[in-house]
């Protein structure tokens, strides 16, 4: 038995292929949108994974360090380390800022795609600067090039998305840092790539003011008679030294000893250390449900609309394709073809179109996903779901077309 659908496709193959391609690109856009949404959620999860922590200890009554600002003294970690069930604990600071390449850096001339890296022509990149203690939680877990930090100052590990290369010198506040290692998928909850620098440098970058501000502050203090008493030499110097010193961090990352429940470790921290402690589950709740909730819903809403529009367009394409063949169908009916055969032909074509569209969509989405400035995560489960939905829509659309085809009067073949 010859395949009617196959014959028809062979007859108008150009039209069929082009329709499939167009459909595919539309499906590709929808899949990408789903990927953008998944990427957002994954960015938030990546932030938690990369910190390597089971517990986040932050300032009391805050939901820091990602959702709110939190400030702790950097010696609090010693008390936390002494608690039962704590395997490792380390200070960490987070600061989102513009990081720029120093002038005359070796890699400054290197052409990096500004769209793909999120940077601009001036070599400035929006990045989250993470201050961590090497070898402790908070350190990037894996590198794609270079090495981990070995010096306690002025070295940096950057995410490849920053566009920095090994050996580049980048400027954060008043110091230059040498990029010694590159890592991947280390992003903030907003998708900004991370730059890892030693904790002490990061504390300075976060809290130390610029020179003008320091000078002004000194002058202000000197003008204050309470701090600049004639009979007390050294008081002014002491006050000024106290003003410029900084021993604050944003959070303490805690790894729990195997066999201990993070919640059980967190309880004494909340009760006796007068700090807030979040477990992984709570932190994920804060990040996904609170921090990125609005923007994720925004994307989600758009995705829903796009999916509906795509479905409508797919249905219309199949419907109009069938209407275009109405004369041929009338001829078929005239020569006594059974309704089942005609319906089968339309259904097969619709499903074939859907399949081609899906494959083209999947391939195109995968190909253009890396070009997006933010992370696009194409989940296989989403793709599968997409396939089922596409097939379902095609079937539904073809039933509409089949109804029209079956109602056609065989006389139309001759009458026109």
């Amino acid at each position, binding site marked *: 038995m010859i395949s009617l659908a196959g014959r028809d496709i062979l007859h108008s193959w150009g039209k069929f292929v082009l329709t499939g391609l167009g459909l595919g690109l539309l499906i590709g856009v929808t899949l990408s949108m789903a990927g953008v949404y998944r990427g957002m959620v994954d960015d938030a999860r990546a932030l938690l994974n990369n910190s390597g922590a089971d517990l986040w200890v932050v300032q009391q009554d805050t939901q820091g360090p990602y959702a709110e600002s939190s400030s702790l003294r950097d010696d609090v970690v010693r008390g936390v380390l002494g608690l039962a069930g704590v395997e490792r604990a380390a200070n960490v600071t987070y600061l989102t800022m513009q990081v720029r390449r120093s002038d005359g850096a070796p890699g400054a001339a*290197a052409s990096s795609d500004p769209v793909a890296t999120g940077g601009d022509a001036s070599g400035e990149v929006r990045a989250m600067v993470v201050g961590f203690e090497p070898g402790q939680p908070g350190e990037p877990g894996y590198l794609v090039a270079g090495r981990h930090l070995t*010096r306690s100052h002025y070295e940096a590990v950057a995410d490849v998305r920053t566009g920095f290369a*090994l050996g580049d010198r980048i400027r954060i506040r008043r110091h230059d840092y040498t990029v010694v290692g590159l890592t991947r998928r280390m992003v903030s909850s907003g998708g900004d790539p991370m730059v890892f620098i030693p904790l002490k440098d990061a504390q300075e970058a976060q809290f130390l003011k610029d020179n003008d501000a320091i000078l002004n502050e000194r002058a202000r203090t000197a003008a204050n008679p309470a701090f600049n008493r*004639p009979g007390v030499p050294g008081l002014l110097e002491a006050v000024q030294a106290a003003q410029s010193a900084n021993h604050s961090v944003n959070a303490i990352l805690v790894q729990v000893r*195997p066999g201990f429940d993070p919640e059980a470790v967190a309880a004494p921290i909340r009760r006796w250390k007068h700090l807030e402690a979040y477990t992984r589950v709570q932190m994920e709740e804060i990040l996904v449900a609170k921090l990125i909730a609005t923007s994720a819903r925004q994307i989600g809403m758009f995705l829903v609309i796009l999916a509906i529009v795509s479905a409508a367009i797919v249905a219309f394409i199949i419907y109009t394709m069938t209407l275009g063949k109405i004369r041929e169908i009338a001829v078929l009916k005239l020569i006594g073809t059974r309704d089942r055969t005609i319906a089968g032909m339309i259904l097969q074509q619709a499903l074939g179109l859907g399949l081609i569209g899906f494959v083209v969509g999947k391939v195109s989405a995968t190909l253009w996903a890396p070009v997006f400035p933010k992370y696009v995560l194409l989940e296989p489960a989403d793709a599968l779901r997409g396939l089922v939905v596409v097939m379902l829509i095609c079937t539904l659309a073809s039933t509409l077309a089949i109804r029209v085809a079956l109602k056609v009067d065989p006389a139309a073949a001759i009458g026109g």
Partner: protein
Amino acid sequence: MKPMSVTRRRLVLSALGLALLAAMAFVVMRSGPLAPTRVTVVRAAEGRVAPALFGIGTVEARRSLQVGPTTAARVRHVAVDVGDTVQAGQLLAEMDPVDLDERGQALAASLARAGSLVTAMESQRRDALARKELAVVNTRRTVELGAQNFLSASAVEARQQEQASAEAALGAAEANLAAARHDQQRLQAEQAGLKQQRANVRLVAAMNGVVTARDAEPGTTVVAGQAVLRVMDPASLWVRVRLDQGRSTGLAAGLPARIALRSNPAQALPGRVARVEAVSDSVTEERVALVEFEQRPAGLSVGELAEVTLSLPSPPASVVLPNASLKRLSGQLGAWRLEAGGLQFAAVRTGAMSLDGQVQVLDGVKAGETIVVHSEKELAASSRIKVVQALVAPQPGTGGQQPGQASQQPGLGGRQP
């Protein structure tokens, strides 16, 4: 357009379908759970690491002093300015002596008066002595005459009483003289003290050096101990280096050092650890070492930031791995070993580490084994991997850089030379 034959159409369509299928297969294999994780590997080899310590510090003067008065006083004049070279003993500044000179004059007058008093007392003593000698002669004569009964007993006794009185008067005169002399000595001592006080308001340099600060101008009142001038010995400049406690193993006096000053980061000046402080900073968790320059550069300024790299003695040869290959899996430090069956996590014990990221592996990995260095994501024992040359295309300008050699020059925080 000439219509194509059915066979040809079929061929074209099949080709298109195949191409689509191939693209799909490629996409599935390249992304998603089926895609292998790309990694780079290194063959573990015996080698030696060149461990080193890195710290930042500031240039300080080993010998510096603050010159100020010992009592509250007003500055009368300051003889030197910032940047002047001074010699030991040179007058730097003078405090207002207030009434010290007048008190000196008063004391001098008192001393002259004391001298006159001593002379008067001396004369009084001589007078008393003469009276006493006369009384002695008279008494002797009276006693002799009394023994021959020429004089009455009462007359003899009167003479004896006269002699006793004269002796007593002499004693009083001698005591007065001694008192006057003591008074004179006291005044002399007071005068010497006043001279010293007068000298004390003159601030002189205790050592050769350079004036680094002039904190008070003439007319300023300073309290005891407050600095009017600061002087430091430029030959004694060294670097106070702070090293992370966690990375200070092997820190000892005598270690060779390379010092990069912020003003000239490209030049590494040779130096040596002169002293390691016995007390380390518990707040910043840093140890403090003092590093001397082999040859002090010109134009060195106190307070300048410096980066110091201390070279440690090289440990014996052992297996050496780049630090990027070391991972932590459930609290255990180790590395992913590539074996025929896949990946295996080898727990390792590490020793010294060099600043270029090479780590001495004491055990856990043998020479010749293949170890994963870089990976696209976290690895697990079940990860499918694909070994590649590099995960990031080397950029022009940094091309050819191997892991660990990214920064052979000290990681200078300073400006570009």
